[in-house]
């Protein structure tokens, strides 16, 4: 009998980004799975080698919209690792605040999308409503909802105003009760238990073999967190817990992420309250030849950057490894034997970020805007005119 393949993707409502999964099924049961990626490949690594060290920060920021802090953070740490040098305490704190803000918004985003994938749109709406508050905080601190552009080799680009801090703390405090309610709603729902428990189990050994990272590995009992293992930023300054669970199923991955949000809020509040004084930028002039490695704990796991410099003002080789690149192949171990309905949520449970995985984009010296708003409006009008004519004919 010929095998039956059910496609998920490439353009599928499950995924914001295009990826093409082929599930080989028997009835509703998945017996095999394969994936074709590359729909998102932009060649960022090559581009990065055309840019200066400063400008590369902007390119890596555009590797992924959700990880737009992790990549610059890891990249700046890689560049700083070439000499090596330490940045000032204040900029460490600011970096930590931004990174943790990203973590909480990323986890909320995942939670909402997971709800959406399960058809539980109320969770989706509620989680994203909370996420808006965090985005507000980020907008206050950095001036933008995403792509914060806060990082540069040697420090941060923008300082935090003292008067903004109480507002931010208030906002963070304001979401905690709702977050608690959401936590209860999600973790105590019997239907969700039925849907998620025991589904897509990643065993401890598999987590090791696949070198799984971040919440994906922590849900399987592998206590692995760069913030603890090789501390950076301000993480050593305060007490916080690493959340580890045992079962490795989708439910545990959700538990890890939800509980982590509370830890993250704690860290953010500590950093905001105890922000030390000092310079925010070490003003690096020249970058000597050498190799640098930077790795940080992104919301999805360890982000790893490798930069090789030959003494010019451009990186000679820039390698980006996003957490999803390592987490993603675990689908092979987790999806087989599950049903199609479960396959989708299992795929979502590692919080995949294909843009990161397929990075290899290019940096562009000029920055981003090519046309100003007026041009675009004009062009838009012209197009609309054409379209009106077309529709008028109909």
């Amino acid at each position: 009998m010929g095998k039956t393949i059910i496609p998920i993707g490439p353009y599928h409502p499950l995924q914001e980004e295009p990826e093409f999964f082929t599930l080989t099924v028997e009835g509703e049961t998945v017996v095999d799975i394969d994936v074709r990626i590359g729909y998102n490949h932009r060649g960022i690594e090559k581009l990065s080698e055309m840019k200066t060290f400063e400008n590369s920060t902007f390119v890596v920021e555009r590797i992924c919209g959700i990880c737009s802090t992790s990549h610059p953070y890891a990249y700046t740490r890689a560049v700083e690792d070439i000499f090596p040098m330490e940045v000032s305490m204040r900029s460490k704190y600011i970096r930590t605040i931004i990174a943790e803000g990203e973590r909480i918004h990323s986890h909320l985003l995942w939670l909402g999308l997971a709800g959406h994938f399960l058809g539980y749109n109320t969770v989706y709406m509620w989680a994203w409503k909370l996420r808006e508050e965090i985005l507000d905080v980020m907008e206050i601190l950095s001036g933008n909802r995403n792509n914060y552009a806060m990082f540069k080799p040697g420090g941060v680009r923008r300082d935090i105003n003292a008067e903004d801090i109480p507002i931010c703390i208030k906002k963070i405090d304001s979401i905690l009760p709702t977050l608690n309610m959401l936590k209860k709603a999600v973790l105590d729902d019997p239907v969700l238990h039925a849907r998620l428990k025991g589904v897509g189990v990643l065993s401890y050994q598999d987590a090791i073999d696949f070198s799984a990272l971040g919440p994906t590995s922590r849900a399987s009992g592998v206590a692995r967190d760069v913030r603890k293992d090789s501390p950076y930023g301000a993480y050593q300054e305060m007490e916080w817990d690493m959340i580890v669970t045992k079962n490795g199923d989708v439910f545990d991955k959700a538990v890890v992420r939800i509980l982590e949000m509370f830890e993250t809020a704690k860290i953010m509040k500590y950093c905001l309250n105890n922000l030390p004084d000092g310079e925010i930028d070490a003003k690096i002039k020249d970058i000597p030849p050498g190799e640098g490695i930077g790795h940080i704990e992104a919301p999805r796991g360890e982000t790893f950057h490798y930069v090789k410099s030959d003494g010019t003002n451009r990186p000679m080789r820039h390698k980006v490894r996003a957490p999803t690149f390592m987490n993603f192949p675990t689908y092979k171990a987790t999806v087989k034997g599950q049903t199609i309905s479960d396959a989708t949520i299992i795929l979502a449970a590692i919080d995949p970020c294909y843009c990161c995985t397929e990075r290899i984009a290019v940096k562009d010296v000029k920055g981003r805007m090519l046309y100003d708003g007026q041009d675009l409006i004009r062009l838009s009008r012209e197009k609309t005119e054409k379209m009106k004519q077309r529709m008028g004919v109909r």
Partner: protein
Amino acid sequence: MSLKLKALLKSPWVFHLSTGSCNNCDIEILDCLTPRFDIERFGMLLIGSIKHADVLLVTGSCNRMSVERLKVLYEQVPKPCLVVAIGTCAGSRGIFKDSYNCPVPLDKIIPVDVYIPGCPPKPEAMIAGVVKLIEKVGGA
């Protein structure tokens, strides 16, 4: 203007197509659905099948894998259909212009009706863009 066209403007169902984006625009599109922005107020719905779509929201810089598939997909949309390029990448390929894997700009592949620039454009900007589109078409 016919009743059906008027109805189209009051109930544009959008289909989201990412052709190699950085996720940011895509997430902001989803954000438009959520309580703060709630585009269902304008009758907009994000739908899963391209055969139900009235508006294609294209994000990203159109890499080699996407080019052929984009043409096929555009064929599949029931007309009339509007195409909105969300973000700088879709509008002009942005910083990815020189990449080896982004050969052709979006509007050389399929006709684009509206460009919404920004990296990423804020949800407000997207809504404003689509509303402007509606006004333009509706003004005929």
